């Protein structure tokens, strides 16, 4: 789960990471109240989970109430790359002396955590990585050993954050930066973050180090030990199909085609999309009902697919392992009773208890669904039922058209 900037800053604050005083506001009136409370000048920042807010006019400085009124009215409701702004974060403006970058994430190839620290902050770090890779200092952190104060100090020294400062200030700033790194690592680990990133991490003109932005991704797998995360789960930036799917605990990604897809396991769901496309169809979605899905999950999945007006056929592709064939079949039968399906269903069912599943379908849903013995044949049938298949050029699809 990606957090908004304001949520990220509030999360940072729990771990003692310094941020500017501020609060969120959902209306011009609230914005004026917040600004008056925290003191001018203030910065108004659009809360959307997408980069490039500044360029889009979503970040503005306000010296007084008139400017707050003007900017808040302009930013609230603004569209930034398809995301509508419903909320502002308003904080006291900072006098910036230096802008840096700091982050913690998992390096999957090294199987260890990775700290990245750079004196070149405030810009897109991927651009820095491409144009000036030496400007980013990296250190792997063993998850068993953790990050020590000495290692953090070493990172700060190697990144050259305090280069050019006088001795007294350099010492104070180094200490603050190293302490902040240790706190950020604690937040990353104890807060179960997949990513904890500060860009920019700033040095103010009066010598304080603090986080001017916050990019936090929480690990959804750890939600069982963070009861408070439920309050932060925002669904307002999802499309309607995705919101419905999430409510039902399904992994769903909306695509642009016409064949609704339900499969078990992320790999098979992706593979199903691939095969549908290769036989000339266009997947309407990716939907993974998950491992060990039961009848109810299958019925929910069909309801979600059914809510998508673009869907002209439904391809259910199940290879049972932990998922059991009879549960899948029962779910389909339940769904057929529960909802009026708008599109025909093609199913391919193999693996654990597939025989039982197939016989349930033969008895309870005969004539209402089409069964196919192989994944590729089922894909062809589903694409055909969806009609108007694209003729694929290139690739190795051996059939130009399914008709």
């Amino acid at each position: 789960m990606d957090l908004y900037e304001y949520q990220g800053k509030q999360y940072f604050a729990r771990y003692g990471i310094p941020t500017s005083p501020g609060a969120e506001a959902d209306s011009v009136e609230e914005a004026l109240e917040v600004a008056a409370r925290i003191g001018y000048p203030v910065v108004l920042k659009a809360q959307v989970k997408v980069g490039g807010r500044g360029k889009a006019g979503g970040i503005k400085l306000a010296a007084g109430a008139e400017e707050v009124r003007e900017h808040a009215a302009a930013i609230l409701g603004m569209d930034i790359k398809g995301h509508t702004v419903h909320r502002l974060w308003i904080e006291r403006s900072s006098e910036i002396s230096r802008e840096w970058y700091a982050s913690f994430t998992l390096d999957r190839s090294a199987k260890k955590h990775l700290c990245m620290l750079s004196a070149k902050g405030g810009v897109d770090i991927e651009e820095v990585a491409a144009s000036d890779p030496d400007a980013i200092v990296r250190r792997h952190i063993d998850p068993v050993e953790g990050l020590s104060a000495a290692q953090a100090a070493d990172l700060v020294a190697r990144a050259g954050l305090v280069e050019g400062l006088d001795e007294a200030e350099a010492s104070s700033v180094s200490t603050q930066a190293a302490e902040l790194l240790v706190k950020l690592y604690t937040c990353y680990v104890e807060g179960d973050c997949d990513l904890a990133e500060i860009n920019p991490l700033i040095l103010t003109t009066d010598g304080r180090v603090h986080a001017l932005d916050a990019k936090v991704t929480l690990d959804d797998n750890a939600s069982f030990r963070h009861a408070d995360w439920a309050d932060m789960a925002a669904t307002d930036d999802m499309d309607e199909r995705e919101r419905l799917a999430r409510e039902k605990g399904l992994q769903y990604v909306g695509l642009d085609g016409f064949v609704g897809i339900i499969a078990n396991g992320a790999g098979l769901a992706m593979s199903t999309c691939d095969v549908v496309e290769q036989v000339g169809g266009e997947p309407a979605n990716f939907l993974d009902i998950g491992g060990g899905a039961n009848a109810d999950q299958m019925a929910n999945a069909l309801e979600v697919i059914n809510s998508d007006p673009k869907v002209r056929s439904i391809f259910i592709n199940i290879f049972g392992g932990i998922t059991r064939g009879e549960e899948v079949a029962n779910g389909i039968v339940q769904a057929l009773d529960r909802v009026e399906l708008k599109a025909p269903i093609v199913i391919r069912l193999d693996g654990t208890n597939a025989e039982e599943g197939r016989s349930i379908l033969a008895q309870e849903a005969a004539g209402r669904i089409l069964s196919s013995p192989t994944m590729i044949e089922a894909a062809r049938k589903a694409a055909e039922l969806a009609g108007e298949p694209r003729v694929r050029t290139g690739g190795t699809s051996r059939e130009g058209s399914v008709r």
Partner: protein
Amino acid sequence: MSVFVDETTKVVIQGLSPTSQGLYHGLRNRSYGTNIVAGTNPKRGGEVIEGIPVYATVTEAVEATGANASFISVPPPAAAAAIIEAAEAGVPFVVCITEGIPMHDEARAFNLLARDFPGTRLLGPNCPGIISAGKCNIGITSGDIALPGGPVGLVSRSGTVFYQALYELTLKGIGQTTGVGIGGDPVPGTSFMDVLAAFEEDPETRAILMIGEIGGSAEEQAAELIRDRITKPVVAYIAGVTAPPGRKMGHAGAIVSGTHGTAKAKMDALAAAGVTVAENPTEAGELMAEVVAKLG
């Protein structure tokens, strides 16, 4: 021959209770012929469930039965501790199918094993397990889809495409030595490279089918190893050719960020390493049939 497990493997099921997933799949594994020797459950030491003696700890189970592999399917909050308990008991091969373990738990467990228990190999988590066709099946794979006799070794990051690939081979009459599902989690205990190296060493494995998916760089790393050290023919399929960038396809592992982690990049890297690359699981089976025919 097979890799990691065979007919001499003795399995302890951790977290065994009458209603556990471990019992359901453990009994399926047993009917396949797997030697299930024990279960563990701190509250049920001394009980016998479906003929399986239960011990309070893995250490006791190992002492009493000589178990040399463990099967973990406990819920996510308890899974990392179960892996570490198996390692502390000296179990050399641990299969963990649990899906949804927090990343930080997984990263700690992996690195703790690497540092303190180098004699323990972890397979998974979030994987279908391992099947040595006709000999031993630990995990959730439906045993009837595997065909004994070799000559193909199968390794897969995706779980359900693992089944699909096994089945495609079996439908074509191509047997398997071992099928290994490494799982799609961020920190898998056993990597493509570990399994590829094991298949290279195994005389009965004469060709390798590798199933990858989008996200990360495990397939690119495997491609380097294949180019440098694997002499046996390899066929590969990468799931997610049509996946849109920037979206998590079901789990954190499967995500294309920018140009990184795309199926295309992985397919290119594998092709450049001399791997025969298929566009879908069915074609992977067909291409493997051609490879096997040439083995003579």
